[in-house]
């Protein structure tokens, strides 16, 4: 069993758990074939590994298809309002450090209406694990383009093509001072589980972007990364400490500009391959990796852990201040507070 330092204040489970323990009696109401099902199964199967009490686990979501997720997890949960899950989770996580708090959100929820809360949760580094289901479309409102949809996308609200350039969620998170940023794919259960594990181990906010297929409104959006033949050219798996290579090609740093570039790997240049360092204090290379992907074709899309570094955790800092205040002033005395220093007495 792995060690989860981020959960050291969370009470341990009395007995081993199974995926079944985390299933509720609610009928799952996503569309048949939705990528959300496989993510739900992967999460339910992974949770026992944490070894913590189920009642100390909380899932908080916003609004959107993915945000129904908490109803299907047999833990505490809140299905809140559009975009606000990181804010609500921040209040819970900072006031209850004995909980494992997870946020489930989507590309519209997290990056459009809730963009502000997402970036501020990331910069604060609250002990939250954010699962961002990115299907590059608005599903629950029936098919409008989202902030991650490719430019020119034809949808109900953009019959002549969308006009706005998309966000790259990994780039956005890195720019927002995130300490843990990863990307994975719904259909790759082992990879998804390994990323969930690393996120759970991380102390602070973890952002996990999960490419998730919407088979109704944006079917096949990630096929290029799933099909074995095309994945050869499209998918870059990042592993800490390993050279970054895929198919016959690899990632190199240009000696003079410092930019990253993809070239054929030869015996002559093999030693020059970029070695992935997820723990680098500087986010520069992680950001450069996030920019390798082509927004339209998804060619050269890295998956895995881009960045995983230590920085003081907001809820720990807040708790430390409370302790320091007690050490300096003693525990609060309400009578003394109300009386203050400037009083007079009327007989």
């Amino acid at each position: 069993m792995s060690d989860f330092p981020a959960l050291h204040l969370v009470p341990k489970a009395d007995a081993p758990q199974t995926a079944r323990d985390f299933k509720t009696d609610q009928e799952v109401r996503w569309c048949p074939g939705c990528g959300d099902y496989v993510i739900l199964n992967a999460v339910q199967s992974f949770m026992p590994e944490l070894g913590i009490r189920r009642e100390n686990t909380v899932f908080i979501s916003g609004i959107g298809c993915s945000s129904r997720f908490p109803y299907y997890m047999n833990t505490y949960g809140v299905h809140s309002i559009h975009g606000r899950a990181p804010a609500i989770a921040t209040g819970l996580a900072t006031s209850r450090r004995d909980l494992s708090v997870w946020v489930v959100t989507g590309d519209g929820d997290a990056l459009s209406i809730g963009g502000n809360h997402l970036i501020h949760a990331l910069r604060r580094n609250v002990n939250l694990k954010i699962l961002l289901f990115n299907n590059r479309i608005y599903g629950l409102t029936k098919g409008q383009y989202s902030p991650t949809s490719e430019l020119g996308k034809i949808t109900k609200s953009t019959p002549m093509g969308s006009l706005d350039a998309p966000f790259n969620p990994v780039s956005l998170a890195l720019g927002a001072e995130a300490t843990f940023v990863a990307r994975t794919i719904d259909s790759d259960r082992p990879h998804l589980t390994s990323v969930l594990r690393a996120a759970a181990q991380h102390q602070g906010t973890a952002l996990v972007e999960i490419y998730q297929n919407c088979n109704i409104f944006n079917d096949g959006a990630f096929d290029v990364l799933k099909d074995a033949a095309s994945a050869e050219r499209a998918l870059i798996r990042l592993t800490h400490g390993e050279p970054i290579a895929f198919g016959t090609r690899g990632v190199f740093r240009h000696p003079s500009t410092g930019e990253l570039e993809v070239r054929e790997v030869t015996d002559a240049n093999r030693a020059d391959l970029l070695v992935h360092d997820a723990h680098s204090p500087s986010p520069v290379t992680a950001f450069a990796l996030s920019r390798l992907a082509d927004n339209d074709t998804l060619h050269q899309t890295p998956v895995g852990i881009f960045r995983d570094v230590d920085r003081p955790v907001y809820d720990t800092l807040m708790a430390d201040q409370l302790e320091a205040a007690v050490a300096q002033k003693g525990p609060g005395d309400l009578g003394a507070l109300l009386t203050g220093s400037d009083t007079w007495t009327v007989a």
Partner: protein
Amino acid sequence: MTSEVDQVEAAGGDPGGADRAAERTSSDAPSRRDKPVRRVDRVIIRFAGDSGDGMQLTGDRFTSETAAFGNDLSTLPNFPAEIRAPQGTLPGVSSFQLHFADHDILTPGDAPNVLVAMNPAALKANLADLPRGAEIIVDTDEFTKRALAKVGYAADPLADGSLSGYHLHKVPLTTLTLEALKDSGLQRKDAGRAKNMFALGLLSWMYHRPTEGTEKFLRGKFAGKPAIAEANIKAFRAGWNFGETTEDFAVSYEVPPAKLPAGTYRNISGNLALSYGLIAAAQRSGLPLFLGSYPITPASDILHELSKHKNFGVRTFQAEDEIAGIGAALGAAFGGALGVTTTSGPGVALKSETIGLAVSLELPLLVVDIQRGGPSTGLPTKTEQADLLQAMFGRNGEAPVPIVAPATPAECFGAALEAARIAVTYRTPVMLLSDGYLANGSEPWRIPAVDELPLISPDFASEPNAEGGAFHPYRRDPRTLARPWAVPGTAGLEHRIGGIEKQDGTGNISYDPANHDLMVRTRQAKVDGIAVPRLEVDDPSGRARVLAIGWGSTYGPITAAVRRVRADGGEIAQAHLRNLNPFPANLSSVLRGYDKVIVPEMNLGQLALLLRAKYLVDAESYNQVRGLPFKAAQLADVLWAAIGTLDGETR
């Protein structure tokens, strides 16, 4: 102090100023004084200057001296939204009014007896409020041609006779301060900044204020800069000595301490009282206090104050926006904290959706709205009470929220406890409506004993409540209709709640029409059924035909007006609402007991609209939206007019 009705404020309603206020013996004047001492029962002073002149600090210090002396008092700070508006201009004028007395008073006073004007702009902006015969103290050094021209004075008002109806004291405050500090080693500019302390010293002499507190305060405030501290103290003492020695100030005034109910008192502003009330509510409920807030005038002081008290286990979270402020508070409430968010009207607008979520989740949450002038940014530093209907109805769907409104600065303490009691007992968000006047105004407060404060029971759910060991998060207490509050960490009570309509009892998602109808009506019934105190009516003779009813900070002016009417032989009843949703159960019968109902409000008739709609009474509005409180004399005229219209009718 507002506890006892006292006719003296009415008797002293003559705006003639200190000279003409009730004069008494001066035989017990301090022996060290060589000049005559006149005893008066109340005084209204207004300090006015540029927003950089330190008028708020000067007013605060005079207030502290006055509180320490034992007078009853009421204050009205009035300042521009700009931190430093253009110097010497009318929009840049900042003022602080203080009313103090030897008896129970209710308002900061209608008309100042004394105006301290630090520059021509301060004189021009405030002169219209002064009654003839009032004393005016001006800093003549600031009355330069350029400064006069800047505010449109064609001639020097100090010389052209236009102030002949007043008692004008021309004092070169800046020169005198510089002279007093010539050996201080300070630069001229820094020394000149102590002129507000010179003025404070002079006023402290005029009104026999104790001075030790101010000296101690200055030493503490400038602890890191002893030269500045000593310079300010020196200027303060120089001002006092100037009063004692100069011919211009022939008399000083004594306002004996007020006879307030027995107890230990302190002076307190509304925002401070509210902050303490929140801490007290946390202590008396055993819940940790969590404040999620975004800075906004005039609510920020609560965030500042609570941030100082982390040793009470208080968590303060300065959020990225108003929505995150309330979101975090609601998240903390889900985890078993006393969740609070503090804001003003524009912030409430942003928080509306989350308040609706809290209504649906049925979790305790306090939403504190320190109302200010609106709409939009409106008048950020001025007072208004135009958010009542927003508090009542400002959400999508049927989303009833209880409303509590304190009537005086000190009452903000109890209002916070009352709001917390309702929120925790009934598992509901509660709106607490204060306003800019209550927030920044201050008055003496009899400090309560901690064990006299009400206890609040969170009564967390700890056991399954349904068949087969299941937990149904919406199975209600039949008495209060409150649902169980089960917090994460409680084994066996894991549950999911959300903003989608829930099935009665189980809390599962439900789109069933009959269930939605039931849930909407149940949420309303829960709020309607909240136990709130009876509405007290003040009708001493029992023969009044007119009822004056208000809510919030209009209590002071309405009560002062009622006293005036009664002192002049009029009969008038008064009632003041502290609970606006639900209304007290006896409100209907109270309203029906009078031939005429007058509702003075600092809005365009929001309470009146509710009373008319709910009780079908012909409630009559009297409104003002000037960013300032009503004046007692103005309301007394309104009440007399109402009595007059009835006197013309036959019964």
